[in-house]
């Protein structure tokens, strides 16, 4: 850009600025339409307790030249407020916002005020620091044991309602399958609430996840829970963990599985395809190492079908994991003429 042109451009900008400022000055005073003015767009309630109501008064002002109509106030699941109807020009009213935090920790809920103001909807954030009514003191139970080991973890119960809770363990069938049982120990003194004991027993190798859930005897929360990850180390190793068969690549039409164990007198009891149109064969590499080969029964898959899934069951003498199941995926569209040519 040459110097003269650049100067002209600057000049034009300045003229425009001056002209804009003059227009603004002429329009001083309330705007013609309704205008909602909020003193603040965020209100902090301070400390609150989970499931207990807190109310605040929020000022709303109409700084416009016409009546402000508030048609609705939408909130999340934790707060509510009734729309006040109409606010006359220059008037200021208060709306009561009531919040009942359903979760603990940092609380934030949003109110959307729909009005006839040009900048509708207005957004109002309500925040608070919420202490729990009742919770288990830990965030997760993450336990790793070797096969056959046992361990008990003690969990305290904290929160404002801790002393009122009558803890009870619901059906434990799934937990028992994972090698867990729960029991409740009574409070040790008036200053303590009941304790939960989680008993882990490493019955078989694998990773077991779920939630330990307790009934509380309270209206809210009626249950509390904590996630658990229970890892049991075994002596069996199977790789890979997912079997991929490439239908369109003859060099990959059979997939190899290595089955190894450090258990004494290791052997394969049974290898079988429990689902899907697949076949399996195996060979013994060494005393502690067997190798299986899985292939898709291409001629049994309908022409044109894309993708086929199945399952391989491996039963061994390894006591830490007597049966292991692997998913099988055959990928690619089956074309019988291609298979025949190969």
């Amino acid at each position: 850009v040459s110097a003269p042109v650049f100067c002209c451009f600057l000049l034009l900008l300045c003229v425009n600025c001056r002209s804009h400022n003059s227009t603004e000055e002429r329009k001083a005073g309330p705007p013609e339409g309704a205008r909602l003015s909020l003193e603040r767009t965020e209100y902090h309630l301070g400390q609150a307790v989970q499931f207990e109501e807190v109310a605040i008064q929020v000022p709303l002002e109409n700084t416009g030249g016409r009546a402000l109509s508030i048609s609705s106030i939408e909130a999340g699941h934790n707060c509510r407020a009734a729309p006040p109807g109409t606010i006359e020009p220059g008037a200021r009213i208060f709306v009561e916002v009531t919040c009942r935090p359903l979760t603990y920790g940092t609380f934030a809920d949003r109110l959307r005020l729909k009005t006839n103001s040009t900048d509708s909807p207005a957004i109002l954030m309500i925040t608070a620091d919420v202490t729990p009514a009742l919770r288990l003191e830990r965030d997760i139970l993450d336990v790793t044991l070797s096969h056959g080991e046992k361990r008990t973890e003690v969990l305290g119960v904290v929160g404002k309602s801790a002393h009122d809770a009558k803890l009870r363990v619901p059906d434990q069938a799934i937990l028992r399958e994972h090698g867990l049982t729960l029991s409740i120990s009574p409070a040790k003194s008036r200053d303590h609430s009941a304790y939960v004991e989680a008993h882990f027993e490493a019955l078989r190798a694998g990773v077991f996840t779920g939630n330990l859930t307790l009934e509380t005897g309270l209206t809210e929360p009626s249950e509390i829970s904590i996630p658990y990850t229970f890892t049991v180390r075994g002596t069996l190793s199977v790789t890979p963990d997912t079997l991929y068969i490439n239908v369109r690549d003859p060099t990959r039409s059979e997939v190899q599985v290595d089955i190894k164990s450090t258990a004494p007198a290791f052997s394969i009891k049974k290898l079988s395809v429990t689902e899907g149109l697949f076949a399996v064969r195996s060979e013994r590499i060494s005393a502690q190492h067997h190798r299986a080969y899985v292939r898709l029964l291409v001629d049994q898959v309908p022409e044109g079908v894309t993708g086929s899934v199945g399952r391989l069951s491996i039963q061994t003498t390894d006591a830490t994991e007597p049966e292991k199941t692997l998913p099988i995926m055959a990928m690619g569209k089956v074309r019988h003429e291609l298979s025949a040519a190969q």
Partner: protein
Amino acid sequence: MGYQSTFDQTYVCNDVNGTLSGKVPIVVSYVAAFYSKRLGRCDCNVNSCGANNNLCVHGANDIKQGINQILDIYRSYAQGYANCFGTTKPIIFEMEPDWYQYTYSSQTSPMTNAQAANFMSQFVGAIKQYLPNARFSMDISPWVAPNNGGDHGQSWYGNFDMSLFSFINTSGGSTEAANTRIRQENNMTWAGVNQVTGKPILADTGYGANGVSAGHDNNWDNPTYINARMNDGVVSISQYNPNSNWGTTISSIRGQLNTPRYCP
């Protein structure tokens, strides 16, 4: 999946049982994120829900305390698919895009890696309860620590029971066909994450922040780039908003493509 708190995707079954018969459906499962969104949160890069009222700030706390409700939603969708699609045909679930964001320090109550892994395993378990033949794909966030994806997810995926997953997938669109990196600004490479996880990659493109369409991504029509990415472990590409002649394009380049390491 997860826009509602109960199953609402019969249309997927109608398509796969009808005009798309023989195809394998892939369902993006955003159940935990939608749960938090129903509590009033926006996606991390969206401000319309109010200042800091987004999944990167409150998402983890919402999910941790709503885990039982979220698992119920998973069960509802799984049961719905079992009823209308059956339990024997394959179906793939791409699990919780941007799951990594719930461990951010910006969260009011960030998930630990152990929690993130635990919840993910529980989500998979809830689906498998009704769909034993479902297959699962774990999300790729190419910026995971350490060093902005520098270890290709070795540390992050090491927290998870990856035997539950048959695939890994990108999310958020804008993945790069012409680059060894998944996105130029991150250090994770296509080949790196494939080697670390041992899983084939489902790639996506053609959209940006908050799902806004970015149009057809022509680089994913280039056989040279596609072959390079297949060699890196990519087995699938989804264009969010493809050109109307994409089918013709695919047909015309098919003969120039190598056989993938895994075959879609």
